[in-house]
């Protein structure tokens, strides 16, 4: 793909000239990598050698006790109470401790408003409008859920090469990157907050009462997160000897929010969660060299914390922390349904973590499998179950794409796709890892046209979050490229949560905390309206083209992401004449007259609306004992996002494409709306999707698209990309300003041992 492309353009041909100037597909340059055959793959662009695996390391119970004691010590010094959660690297909750004086609630998920005070959007309230998505929601007794989500985020975003926090997450999920820098594209991980969801069919469960997930006692990860990933500062990774072993999450201010302004230094009141967490991990920090402070993305330095070093703003010396037994009088370990059991209330309930790479963690080198690795690449890691058996071994597709089963992906092709993608990744120069010239570490997922998982594998030290996200990306690219996407989405009804929950026989317990209490009989509650799928289909067909979502356009996740941003083009709030740009058709509006409908990171649009019911249902399940709700009325969310649990069993809100082979919706772990996936075709017929996640988005794009390209070259049977004429970068939305959608954008000179400039020229 080249900049200023001469590709045929569709839908808004009158705007062709403008589009040519604004398209700005990344990676435009002059040197191909493949030359059109497998034999001509350039040296240094494919790595099948051996890399080091992360050392086996884990948190002991004593480690966790020390971390909690240090955190409590800091909270006491600040004069606040806190809820503290610690997880291991794969999301097992090792302890949840709540101080006696802690605020047990989560008030107003995004209550801190920010108002634009210049330009045509002057007066726009960006967050805290209340009404759509999770915005403004106050959830009684949910502080432990917030703490767990923050701990999971610290653990999942980090690796031996990068230490990211929830403050880092906040920086990379907002409408501009950096936040508040208008006319900059949205955050590179825009939408990642709605991953690791409770309804994911990939993520495991600590316990379940509805036939879903992994049962009590299993430590196999990656575990789900009760609220997805968090952007509220106070979630940090935990390290031992340079190896990430877990995360800590702290809630002390009762607010589950985000950092809307990264250019300032938060006040003492705003930073208290983070300081308590920092105190907690004293002695367990990642090396300075890998902290987000030392990593740049798109010219921006990432944020780790709002301290200049670990201790400059702490109120107490962590070394003065009392022993764990001493702090038990100041609070208690807290049972959290679905996440953490308390039996004795003593240190005996504080668990040790698993060691990533050990079968108990759910991740092992593929070479350690009983039957040997299915992959040629010796570095592949795979997911395993309690018994050490692989969970997502490469397999052939069972679907019948295009009515012709002969086109379905074979097992050999799935293996090839993963091998080639891993080969590209490990030859590449990482964006987010230090030291410089580290190899890229990611997860790769392959799906068929039902959304069935055909294979998942990863490099040894990819961040854990990429496991679920790579699958989301693969499914999203496949789904929106399929001829059934419009009809599938059209069946998703508009939902007012209060109605839906009551119809399902559930108690709508999400009442505002201040003065109101949960009312099982449907008293005053907070409405969480989920827009209908048809409204998004209509918007897409108005904005993009009348035949959108009918299989006529091959959408990569980058192209889909263009349509999922609150501005189109991405990040551009207004045109030169001051006219406000519209939101993408899959996004909430940014500046609606009805502010309750506005976009925020807690209410992204279609992405949230298809999983919002699952999230809320799971929250009620997790809080059921604490709120005194009826267990039979608060079942956990089913396995498979887009299914909704009723008292009669699961009901599909999104249709199931092939229930016999894959009885759940095609977006069974939710959709993802940032780049790193492409649909897979054979001779012009859609047959699946490949998703990659774990490094920069351009790197993820390159690995998925080049991996597919090379697998097709090797197989030589029509396997490959969508025909150029139907790729999303040929489309100029009729409702836009003449800008084209994108397809993939690859990094310049991406390989460590090759000087190739444009690796993706010949896709």
């Amino acid at each position, binding site marked *: 793909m080249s900049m200023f492309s001469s590709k045929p353009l569709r839908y808004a041909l009158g705007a062709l000239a403008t589009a040519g100037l604004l398209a700005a597909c990344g990676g435009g340059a002059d040197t191909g990598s493949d030359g059109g055959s497998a034999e001509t793959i350039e040296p240094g662009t494919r790595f099948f050698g051996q890399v080091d695996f992360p050392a086996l390391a884990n948190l002991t119970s004593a480690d966790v006790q020390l971390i909690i004691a240090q955190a409590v010590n800091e909270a006491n010094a600040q004069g606040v109470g806190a809820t503290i959660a610690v997880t291991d690297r794969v999301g097992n909750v090792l302890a949840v401790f709540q101080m006696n004086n802690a605020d047990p609630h989560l008030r107003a998920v995004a209550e801190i408003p920010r108002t634009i005070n210049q330009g045509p959007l002057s007066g726009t309230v960006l967050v805290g409008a209340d009404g759509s998505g999770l915005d403004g929601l106050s959830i009684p007794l949910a502080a432990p859920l917030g703490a767990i989500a923050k701990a999971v985020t610290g653990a999942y975003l980090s690796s031996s090469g990068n230490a990211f926090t929830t403050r880092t997450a906040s920086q990379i999920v907002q409408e501009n990157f950096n936040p508040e820098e208008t006319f900059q594209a949205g955050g590179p991980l825009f939408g990642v907050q709605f991953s690791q969801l409770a309804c994911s069919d990939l993520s495991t469960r600590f316990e379940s009462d509805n036939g*879903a997930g992994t049962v009590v006692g299993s430590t196999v990860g990656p575990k789900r997160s009760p609220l997805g990933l968090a952007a509220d500062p106070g979630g940090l990774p935990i390290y031992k000897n340079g190896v990430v072993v877990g995360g800590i999450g702290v809630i002390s201010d009762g607010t589950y929010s985000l950092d809307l302004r990264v250019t300032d230094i938060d006040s003492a009141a705003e930073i208290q969660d983070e300081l308590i967490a920092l105190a907690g991990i004293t002695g367990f920090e990642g090396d300075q060299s890998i902290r987000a402070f030392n990593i740049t993305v798109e010219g921006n330095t990432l944020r780790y914390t709002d301290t200049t070093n670990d201790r400059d703003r702490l109120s107490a010396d962590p070394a003065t922390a009392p022993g764990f037994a001493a702090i038990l009088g100041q609070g208690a370990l807290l049972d959290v349904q679905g996440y953490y059991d308390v039996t004795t209330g003593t240190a005996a309930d504080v668990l040790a973590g698993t060691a990533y790479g050990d079968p108990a963690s759910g991740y092992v080198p593929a070479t350690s499998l009983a039957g040997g690795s299915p992959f040629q690449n010796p570095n592949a890691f795979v997911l395993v179950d309690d018994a050490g058996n692989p969970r997502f071994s490469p397999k052939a597709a069972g679907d019948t794409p295009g009515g012709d089963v002969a086109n379905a992906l074979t097992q050999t092709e799935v293996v090839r796709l993963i091998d080639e993608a891993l080969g590209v990744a490990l030859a590449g120069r990482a964006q987010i890892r230090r030291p410089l010239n580290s190899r890229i570490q990611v997860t790769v997922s392959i799906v068929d046209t039902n959304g069935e998982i055909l294979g998942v594998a990863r490099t040894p030290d990819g961040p854990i979050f990429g496991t679920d996200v790579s699958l989301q990306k693969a499914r999203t690219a496949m789904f929106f490229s399929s001829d059934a996407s419009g009809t599938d989405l059209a069946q998703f009804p508009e939902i007012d949560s209060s109605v839906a929950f009551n119809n399902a026989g559930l108690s709508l317990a999400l009442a505002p905390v201040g003065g109101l209490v949960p009312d099982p009989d449907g008293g005053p509650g907070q409405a969480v309206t989920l827009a209908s799928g048809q409204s998004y289909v209509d918007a897409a067909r108005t904005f993009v083209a009348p035949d959108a979502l009918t299989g006529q356009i091959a959408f990569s996740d980058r192209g889909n992401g263009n349509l999922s941003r609150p501005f189109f083009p991405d990040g551009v709030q207004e045109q030169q004449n001051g006219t406000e740009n519209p939101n993408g058709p899959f996004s909430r509006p940014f500046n609606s007259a009805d502010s309750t409908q506005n976009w925020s990171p807690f209410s992204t649009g279609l992405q949230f609306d298809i999983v919002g019911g699952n999230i809320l249902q799971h929250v009620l399940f997790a809080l059921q004992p604490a709120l005194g709700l009826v267990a039979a009325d608060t079942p956990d969310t089913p396995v498979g996002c887009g299914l909704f649990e009723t008292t009669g069993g699961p009901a599909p809100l999104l249709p199931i494409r092939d229930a016999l*082979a894959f009885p759940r919706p095609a977006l069974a772990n939710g959709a993802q709306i940032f780049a790193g996936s492409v649909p897979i075709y054979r001779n012009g017929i859609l047959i699946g999707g490949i998703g990659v996640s774990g490094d920069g988005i351009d790197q993820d794009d390159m690995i998925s698209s080049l991996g597919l390209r090379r697998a097709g070259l090797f197989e030589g049977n029509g396997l490959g990309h969508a025909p150029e004429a139907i790729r999303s970068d040929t489309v100029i939305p009729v409702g836009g300003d003449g800008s084209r959608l994108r397809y993939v954008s690859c990094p310049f000179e991406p390989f460590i041992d090759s000087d190739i400039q444009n690796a993706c020229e010949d896709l």
Partner: protein
Amino acid sequence: MKLLNVFGAIAFASTITAAMTTADAAERLSAAGEILPNAAFASGGALEARVDTGGDDVLSVHAILRPASSNITWMRDRDGFWLNWNGRPDDLIESAARREGDELVFKIFDAPPPGVTSMTVTVVYRTPEGLKYGWFNAVERAE
């Protein structure tokens, strides 16, 4: 490849009955697939599924099991062995069920496959017009 012999040595009938869980009775299957009520079974216990054929002419019966959080799909043969299934309806092999009037009682397992405590089970029968099926989640009951 035979994966598991979940029947193995047949236990005494009374023992089977005592440990057995049968999914809710008299559910109907359909060509589009039906979501059936969840089921729970005792640790190491048996599982059956009862469906109402509504007078359908049943030519063959089939059962599919997918362990939770995996992409594994097994099909059950007449003897209770679980074999890999490729996802294609035409390749399903026959399983076993007993008739009780208009109802079919599918044998799923006498004991769950080792290490599998949570799963999706799909029950299928073939009529002259095609397949009818439904699925349910089954989980080991917490004792």
